[in-house]
């Protein structure tokens, strides 16, 4: 894994941490409307349709991924210090395998997982990735968790998160398997498109001298966003 660079947590860390934490937390808390479900009209469509609707389900899968800030934050964390496309491809594939398995298994087997708990774990996965990027596991605990296995495992939780969104609806059993496979394919397409945008943006960012200076702060922001997601979802869990 030559390509993974972990920046040292230097003296910059505390200086940027406070304001960034506050800003990110404020942003996330002030956006309750972002309850990350499937949009109202999409929901009606999902519930009204019966039979094979491959392209619309594919579209909704892609839309869910492209607009799913929790999945995107995690992906940004995963690729943050990946400089080679083959590493990006490897990690994203592991993530995809993880979330495909549980999305398909969850919906098709009818396994019910509490959506708030799953979404809180997804938030936690963002925290984990930020901490990992900052090299803090090594620093605090003297061990570096296997990053590939971690991405795969958190991918499994992200898949359950996708599954719970679909399970909120009474989907017609007619054509369900094909539709869910199409939804999953759409999730991969959406992920691919979103990743393309993220990679381009990060490519420009990495060219700037400021990247090294901003990288630590960005990962602190990631951690803060992850914690905000956890708190938001746990609040939902205890008040629902």
């Amino acid at each position: 894994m030559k390509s993974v660079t972990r920046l040292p947590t230097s003296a910059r860390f505390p200086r940027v941490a406070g304001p960034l934490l506050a800003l990110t937390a404020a942003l996330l808390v002030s956006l309750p409307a972002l309850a990350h479900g499937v949009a109202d009209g999409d929901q009606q469509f999902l519930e009204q349709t019966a039979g094979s609707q491959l392209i619309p389900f594919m579209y909704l899968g892609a839309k869910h991924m492209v607009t799913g800030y929790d999945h995107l934050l995690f992906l940004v964390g995963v690729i943050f210090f990946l400089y080679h496309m083959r590493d990006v491809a490897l990690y994203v594939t592991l993530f995809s395998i993880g979330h495909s398995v549980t999305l398909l298994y969850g919906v098709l087997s009818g396994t019910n997982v509490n959506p708030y708990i799953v979404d809180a774990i997804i938030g936690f996965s963002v925290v984990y990735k930020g901490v990992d990027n900052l090299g803090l596991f090594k620093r605090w605990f003297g061990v570096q968790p296997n990053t590939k296995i971690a991405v795969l495992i958190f991918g499994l939780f992200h898949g359950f998160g996708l599954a719970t969104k679909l399970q909120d609806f009474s989907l017609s059993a007619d054509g369900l398997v094909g539709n869910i496979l199409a939804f999953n394919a759409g999730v991969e397409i959406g992920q691919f498109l979103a990743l393309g945008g993220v990679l381009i943006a990060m490519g420009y960012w990495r060219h700037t001298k400021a990247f090294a200076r901003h990288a630590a702060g960005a990962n602190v922001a990631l951690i803060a966003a992850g914690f905000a997601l956890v708190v938001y979802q746990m609040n939902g869990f205890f008040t629902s």
Partner: protein
Amino acid sequence: MNPPSEFDPSALPSRRTLSRATLIAAVVASVLLVTVVLPAESGTDPTGVGRWLGLTALGELKSGHAAAETTAPATAPTTAAEPDAESAPYAFRTDELTLTLKPNEGTEVKAVMREGDQLVYSWTADSGELFFDFHGEPKGAPADVFTSFEKGSEGSAKGTFEAPFEGVHGWYWKNRTSEAITVRLNTSGVYKTIARK
């Protein structure tokens, strides 16, 4: 494992590559916007690709939904009747639901009930009147089959209801005023779940 390594600038894509990637991304995004996103989100389909893909129906449902519902409240899901086979009776429960309808917006709140299940209900609009259609859709019925129990336009209503058949029963509300209306619904009785559709 994974010892931290030094930053390797040679691994960065060149600015030239980045510019090309940006251009490609912009083209892909524009094409998708016109052929996929617009049809699926607003029903606008300038190229015809959306209709070919079957996405325009999705967009038309969203944008034309309010208009369609004025005449046919039952455009709401009818596959919603739960495919559960267990025969245990539903438990007694109490729910409170608050929702806000924008001008011209319509919505449905339905309870999953079996034949003979009863509930008491009370709903109140915070201002003005709401058009309502209290109706039921039999379990497993096709999309446009529903039975209307009571229709009208009121600021509030309450009563007792006994489900004449198994299925989903509840209200279609439509805000026909020019101001947003918040409606609060309280229900108690024997039913599985109650939710906005």
